[in-house]
């Protein structure tokens, strides 16, 4: 069975680097599934879920905004946050969400607002995926 090499890299770590059979991710134009021998494509990644299928097992991950580059046998994902679904600490994410929301209520500069919004987005994405996995 042909495989794809999926690489997910954040500035602080290389989360994932393995051969998989299929990848599902959320691009800027909507969700897309990528199989081996996909046409070369470059697009923006929207915060959400990435699912990789390996040996008929689905691996779920939460990611932040970023970029995706697809070449024939490889999917490279650059993002500012990435975490495996089973590693998500729901309590920590919930706390982060509350903290971020409280911070947003205060008056902040543009830069700070952007930072806080990013962390809020990260927390929300993690929570959403955790909840979806449970259903």
């Amino acid at each position, binding site marked *: 069975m042909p495989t794809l090499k999926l*690489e997910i*890299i*954040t*500035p*602080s*770590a*290389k989360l994932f680097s393995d051969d998989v059979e299929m990848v599902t991710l959320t*691009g*800027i*134009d909507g969700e897309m599934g990528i199989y081996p021998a996909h*046409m*070369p*494509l*470059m*697009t*923006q990644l929207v915060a959400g879920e990435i699912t990789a299928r390996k040996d008929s097992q689905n691996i779920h991950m939460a990611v932040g905004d970023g*970029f995706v*580059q697809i*070449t*024939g046998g490889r999917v*490279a994902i*650059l993002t*500012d946050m990435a975490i495996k679904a089973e590693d998500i600490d729901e309590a920590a994410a919930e706390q982060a969400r509350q903290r971020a929301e409280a911070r947003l209520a205060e008056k902040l500069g543009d*830069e*700070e607002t*952007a*930072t806080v919004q990013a962390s809020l987005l990260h927390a929300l994405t993690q929570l959403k995926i955790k909840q979806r996995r449970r259903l």
Partner: protein
Amino acid sequence: MPSTRDIRRRIKSVKNTAQITKAMQMVAAAKMRRAQQAALVGRPYAQLLNEIMAEAAANMSGFDHPLMQSRPVVKRAVILVGTDRGLCGGLNSNLFREAAKLDKNTTVFVTAGRKASQFVARTKRQLNAEFSYQDIPLFSEARAISKLAQELFLTGAVDAVDILYPRFINTLTQQPEKVPFLPLGKLAAVTAGINAPKQELAESNTPEVFEFEPDEETVLGALLPHSLNFKMHQILLETKASEQSARMVAMKNATDNAKQIIKDLTLEYNKLRQANITKELLEITTAQMAVG
């Protein structure tokens, strides 16, 4: 001739200094490891970003992004990245010597770190903005600097932006280096010059035609500023690594010097003490002989 008490006092004060420099050395060593680590973990990301940029460049069909526009340079901005605190050897002075070579009239400074803004103020150069950053520089701090630089460039206030920072070579060596920031001349070189290892472009050079989704302009419009922000962040991380290494080495030298001084002073003190004892003995025996 100093008295034994004077020498004792000096030894004590040098000992105190040595204790402080030793403590600073330890702190710097611990922080250095963390800073170096932080600078290193970004490498795979930088490498991939490089690759993506290179491939995007190879696939661009006559598309010109405003950030890539090169104009004749009348005014240029220099982002001077220094440290917040001193006591790090010649790191800042070497950096500022380079900065002093730049033309006062056509260069505007944007500074990061307190020492850098002090330098610009002291030498009465043009300062556009000053920023600060933490021990482990945050991405948002880098983004603020990079954003300002991009604005300056896009509004036409300056025609080129360079970064001057102490490049981390190894623990013992740091070198001031000036790297171009804007305009993005050749896309492929965007993140090179960061401590990224030589990128292997061989495999990605295969002529593949990329699709952009939704289109080139949107993707590059997001990718280019992001890569600049990331580059700025890497430079801050590297400056921090340089600073902590330089401080550690400087403090180690200071501790060693203090130890040497203590040794010399102790020797002198003992000599003096013995001379005093001998003198006193001599006085006692002479007195006894005179009485007896």
